[in-house]
């Protein structure tokens, strides 16, 4: 065996002690620190259950988010004064038409900061057929912590948030890829 210098011996001892202490830390913290995050916790961020809400469409139909579980949901917060929101609407509509069996697209108009007749006219002119609900009081927008428009939440079939995209416009390719990802979540 090769003779080690004093420095090498000290170094080897240092490395050995460091690695043993690090391994000990992993075991100790796994036993006493590690708690499973409550997956049922509700928060507007990836990994948590999406906050539930119940809002009306323009024709008075009430939609509750919790009742949509069973299919992935794309939740898009928008307003008619927001240019990127309007730009991505055709892509959302196309994906809605193409994947209507696989995903629910739900628009949430931030009506508290919008003008309902203008937003409604925009939807009609652009032949948007996916459901859009009106957040007149802004409570849902606030619960979701929406600080910029558009903001889009991608929910799996269990209502858990899998991705959040702030800003836009989102391309059709991005939306289709997200639908593919959501479909694979078990």
């Amino acid at each position, binding site marked *: 065996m090769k003779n080690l210098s004093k420095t090498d011996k000290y170094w080897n001892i240092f490395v050995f002690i460091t690695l043993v202490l690090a391994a000990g830390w*992993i075991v100790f913290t796994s036993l006493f620190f590690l708690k499973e*995050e409550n997956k049922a*916790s509700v*928060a507007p961020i990836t990994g948590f259950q999406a906050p539930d809400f119940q809002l009306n469409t323009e024709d008075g139909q009430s939609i509750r988010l919790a009742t949509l579980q069973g299919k992935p949901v794309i939740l898009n917060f928008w307003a008619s004064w927001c240019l990127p929101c309007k730009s991505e609407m055709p892509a959302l509509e196309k994906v809605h038409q193409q994947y209507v069996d696989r995903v629910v697209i739900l628009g949430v108009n931030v009506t508290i900061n919008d003008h309902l007749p203008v937003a409604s006219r925009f939807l009609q002119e652009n032949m948007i057929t996916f459901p859009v609900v009106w957040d007149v009081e802004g409570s849902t927008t606030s619960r979701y912590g929406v600080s910029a428009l558009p903001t889009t939440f991608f929910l799996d079939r269990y209502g858990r948030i899998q991705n959040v995209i702030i*800003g836009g416009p989102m391309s059709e*390719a991005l939306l289709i890829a997200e639908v593919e990802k959501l479909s694979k979540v078990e």
Partner: protein
Amino acid sequence: MFPVLRIGPLALQTPGLLILLGIWVGMILIEKFAERFSISSKRLESLTLWSLLSGVLGARLFYFLRFPQAFWANPLDILSLSPFLLDFQGGIAVALTVALIYGQKHKMPFWATLDAFTPSFAVFAVSLGLARFASGNGYGIETHLPWGVELWGAVRHPVQVYEVLLTLLIFYTVLPVRSREEISKRQNSGVLFLKFVALIAAANLFLETFRAEGVRLFGMVRAEQITAWLVLALSLWLLGRRQRVAIEIPTELKQGVDSGSKVV
């Protein structure tokens, strides 16, 4: 937590801005410190730009390969400026490959190049911590400690703050304060980089304890901690080896070295 920075009608994504800021400061540090490791700063900047550019293109290519069906209807979406149509693992793999090829082609010394990049890597690690702090991702487990912060419906360890503080400390530790001559005489190439890797691995091993997210092996041990331990072990082993090899002194500096030094 401040995911969006509002400037008039513009809403800028703070995490992305902080990462760009990290890259920009990193480029400044390359220019400042490259010569101390006997490497041309222009060459390093060029390597960085090639890597970044190829990384972005590679990330888009891998995204396309992962979801080809997404581009059938609109093939031009492959040219979209959206930062969301990127596959980060693919991008990193392409960037590293291009960096290796570039380094080989221009005969750049492997370990000394990594040393010269180390302050930039360290500042980038700080910017990643700040980006997590801004976005609220990488949040901590629940705690009753007095410095816990209210986040996502619970009082949690401010693990993003721990991360920023630790990476700042690591940045300070790896900042080369010695002159080019001193570095050449006293330190083998690769030692600074490996020291940084070991410190980052140790920091992650500690930080992952307090992070709420993560993959658990056998329902209890965190995969991220095991990975950090393996990286720590490998970097310490390599560090031992690099410290033992004779100091390599650039030819132009050999004149000034004492006759008793270990010149290869």
